[in-house]
Structures are given as C-alpha cells and as structure tokens.
C-alpha cells in the first residue's frame, strides 16, 4: 500500500465573504509516486486546489495535510520545498537571464552550496533534455522548451510533488508532446507524485487516477477507463470524451459487442480483431 502524501479534509475555499464558494467540502488523498489528473470545466476549482497545495491560498474550512504537516503560515516554506508547480504561461515564470541562471534561482533562494547547484543544474537540464541550452537566453526558446526549463527549475529543489497547472495549454502539439514525454520520464526517474491539471484528454489517459471537479465539488474519482465510460454524464458537466470512447459507443450501437472500455485505438483494434477472428 502506498503512503498518503497529500490529504484534503473537508476543504472549502472562497476569495471573500461576499463571494460564492470556489471549493465546497472537498476531501481526497494523493499518494506517493502517483500520477493523478484533475479535470473539470473552467471555474470548477481545479486551479484553486493547486494553489491550496502549496499555500498560495489557505482554506476557510477544513484542513490540508502534506507530508504529515498541516499547511499553514508556519509550514508553507517547508511545504513549498516539497511541492513544485509549473503554470500555464511559459513567459510568466522566467527569472534568469540564461537557462542555467533560471534553474539556479530556486536553489539560490534556498541557500544551496555552489557545487551542489552546478551538479543539479546539469542533472535536471539533462532530465528534461535541455542540457545543450544551458547558456541560452530564455526568449530564444520555444514555448515547449521554456516549459521544460521551468520543470527543470522546479525539479532542482527535489520536490516530492510536481503540479502542472495547465502547463501545456499554451503550447503547440509538438510542445505538448515534448512536455508529456519529459514529465513521464521524470516521474519514473524521480519517483514523485505528479498532478496534472488539464483539459487535454491525452494527458488524462496517461494518469493512473482522475479527479473530476464540477462547480467546486468532487464529482468523481476513478481510473481514466472508469471515468471515460461515463460519456453522457461527462458531457453534461462540460467535459470532453476521447474519440476512442465515442467510436466504441457507436460500434456498440451498430451491433458490435465490445465488452471492454478501450482507452486507446490499439486496445479497440485488439478487441475488434478478437471478435473478428472468433468466428
């Protein structure tokens, strides 16, 4: 059994007393070394969850426990060391004048010795495939490259959780692919919990578990396969369903008895082939 790393206990949040609740009584757990995707319509509370996880916001009700500590004013500095975050806009998160300065920034803030910084810059830029760009100025990079550097900067301080808050939303398909490849390698190599907040179905399918948010509440929590089986209900709350799930439905309606809920085209073709060769 894996250990709990993050726990939300009946968490509610709103920006001010006059405003409606953004999160309502949310409870869930995230385990060590787990990949979880959080999906939901715009305004469903996804990003608020992320901001609560590293103390950019604090809940009015309930409590958040990370690595055994409750998130509050006193613990946020420890917690931020454990919880790294990459945001949507690649242009808003650069501070250094070169790629390596940028990766060094977080470590400088935490007083890492120079030798350790040099080692970690090398190690983490290699992990995201950006080692050759060590001396490049950030504005010369593509969006996908910028986000990879942002990931390296966060990894450099060895977080135990990496949160990607729509980190691929502003990238082109190539950039998205780069990021997803990077992230999945990194998760493997660093054994960290990965939380991807996204609308991209490809990203959701790769996760082990999906948390679906609707109007500030947890609507469902299950594997991608279980989630995408609920096509109609997902559409009702403004979410998308992968092409494979739609096609599977249509195939069933056309009289083909597919029993599994295929997650990708290979699985679907495999099912069709089994049916085909059985007779």
């Amino acid at each position, binding site marked *: 059994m894996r250990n709990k790393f993050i726990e939300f206990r009946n968490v509610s949040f709103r920006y001010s007393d006059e405003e409606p609740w953004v999160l309502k009584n949310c409870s869930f757990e995230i385990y060590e070394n787990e990949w979880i995707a959080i999906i*939901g*319509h*715009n*305004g469903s509370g996804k990003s608020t969850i992320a901001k609560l996880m590293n103390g950019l916001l604090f809940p009015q009700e309930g409590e958040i426990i990370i690595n055994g500590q409750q998130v509050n004013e006193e613990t946020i500095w420890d917690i931020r060391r454990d919880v790294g975050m990459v945001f*949507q806009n690649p242009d808003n998160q650069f501070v250094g004048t070169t790629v390596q300065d940028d990766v060094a920034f977080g470590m400088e803030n935490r007083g890492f010795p120079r030798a350790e910084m040099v080692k970690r810059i090398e190690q983490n830029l290699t992990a995201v495939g950006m080692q050759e760009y060590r001396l490049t100025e950030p504005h010369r990079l*593509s*969006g996908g490259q910028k986000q990879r550097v942002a990931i390296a900067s966060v990894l450099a301080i060895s977080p135990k959780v990496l949160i990607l808050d*729509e980190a691929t*939303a*502003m*990238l*082109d*398909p*190539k*950039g998205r*692919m780069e990021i997803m490849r990077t992230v999945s390698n990194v998760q493997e190599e660093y054994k960290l919990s990965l939380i991807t907040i996204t*609308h991209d179905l490809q990203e959701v399918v790769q996760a082990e578990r999906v948390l679906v948010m609707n109007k500030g509440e947890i609507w469902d929590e299950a594997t991608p396969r279980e989630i995408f089986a609920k096509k109609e209900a997902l559409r009702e709350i*403004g*979410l*998308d369903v992968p*092409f*494979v799930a*739609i*096609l599977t439905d*249509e*195939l069933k*309606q*056309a*009289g*083909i*008895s597919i029993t599994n809920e295929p997650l990708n*085209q*290979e699985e*679907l*073709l495999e099912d*069709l*082939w089994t*049916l*085909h*060769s*059985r*007779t």
Partner: protein
Amino acid sequence: MDITFKNVSYIYQRNTPFAHKAIEDLSFHIPSGSFVAIIGHTGSGKSTLIQHLNGLVSPSSGEVTIGDYRLTDEKKPKQMKELRSRVGVVFQYPEHQLFEETVEKDIAFGPQNFDISETEINKRIKEVIPKVGLQEELLKRSPFELSGGQMRRVAIAGVLAIKPDVLVLDEPTAGLDPRGQKEMMDMFYTMHQEEGLTTVLVTHSMEDAVKYADHVIILNNGTKYMEGKPEDVLTQQEALNKVQLDVPEAVQFLQSFEKRFGVQIPFTRQSTKEIAQSVQRYIKGAGPHE
C-alpha cells in the same frame, strides 16, 4: 473577398543584423466565402501571415491582394482604414485587449473608429450580443467582472460590430474548456454560413480543421508545406509526421484499421457513427446484421 498571396516574403528588422525571415515565397489563393484553416507550429509564420490580412504589415517582397486592396513593399493602399473595416481580426487571447468601463462601450470602440453613427452602432450592438451568446443585461457591466469565456465573447463582439467581410481567427479557443471550445467554434461556423463570411482560422487542432474548414494550408518554417481539401491533406500521415503534425483521430483509426484488417475505408469527413457502421460490415460475427 478573395485573398491572394503571390510570392510573399516578409523579413522582420530588415537591413539590420537581427533580420529574420518569417515568411518566404508564400503563394496561395482563398476564394471568397471559404473557411480556411491555417495549421503550423509556433514559428511557422502563421501570425505574420495574419498580420498581412489587414495590413498590419506589408510584404517585404511579393504581393497580397484582399478583394480590391493591394499590398506590396512599395505601396500600401490609400484606403488602409477601409481595408481594416472589412477584415476583422480576432487575435489570441482577445480578452486581454478589453479596456472600457462597460461591455457596451468596449463593443462600440471598434465601429466608432470607423466613423459609424451612434444609432447604427447601437443597432449593431443589439444584433451582435445574441450572436456571441451574451445577454443584454451584461452591456452596462464592466467587462472585467465577467468570466474569461464571457470576456472573450465581448472582444469578439467588438470585432463583429465592424461587420467585416473577412473574419480572421487566431486560435480563438485557446484556454477555454472543452464545452467552451465547441460552443465558440460552432458560433463562428454558424456566422460564417449565415453571413457569407470568408473565414481564416489559425489553429493547432486537426480536429477543428477537419470539422469546419473546406480548405487547409499547412505552414512550415515560413513556407507553404501542403494545401488542399481537408480530406486530401489531413490524411497524409507520413508528410504530416515529418513536420511533427498528426492526422485527425478518425483518420488515424481508419489507417490502423486498414493495416490490421486489410480493408480500406476511405476518409470522407464522415461522422463517427458512419465510421462505426462501415467497420461493422467488415467484422465477422458482429451482431444482428449478419
């Protein structure tokens, strides 16, 4: 209005050490009333192309014609303002450009610049508000109190209030959730049809291109890489993969199906239902129709 690019090149910071060629020898023709998708990666020249369409930049060499307006290096049309009143551009994240105190004033800003009378502007605002899916009650509100999706609709209403003949959309659904994306694209498509617009859509989404466009242009490194009907261009997996693009999912499925079952089901932009029905015919023991 017809749009024609003839051997167009554009160089940023020309005659400086920073000179950078964004578009090179680009030629294409978009007949009036088309819905064209322009696809390409960041840096492929899409944004530079768009800026030519309403004269924000003129070609460094070659010629751009939009209806009767001609843009070349030597001459900008005298009627640049007129051109801009006929080509409406919705830039990326257009909600960042809102600035007025009320939604109404923000929508009116565009037409006011083109010396349109106040009565006419008021009439247009009334027309345009339901088209973009907003309620009239919002008109007196500050645009900054609205949700991101609503703000974007206000910005789009401002462009539509100019009553352009050509509508240029630069990734209009970026950052919206799936339902928002679909609503927005459906809205543009309806307007395209009802008002006989020429629509130019810049997108990363092969799915949107195949669903809405009747013509696609693929850019790579500032040049035209492919062009044609969606069903012809967006089925060429190898060529698309070479520039790190991919075919739409339905095409992917049909191609894998062919490899596995040795049966070719041609892609004609048919619905998923129709694909399922075609597949059903080839699967042995597939149920009631056998």
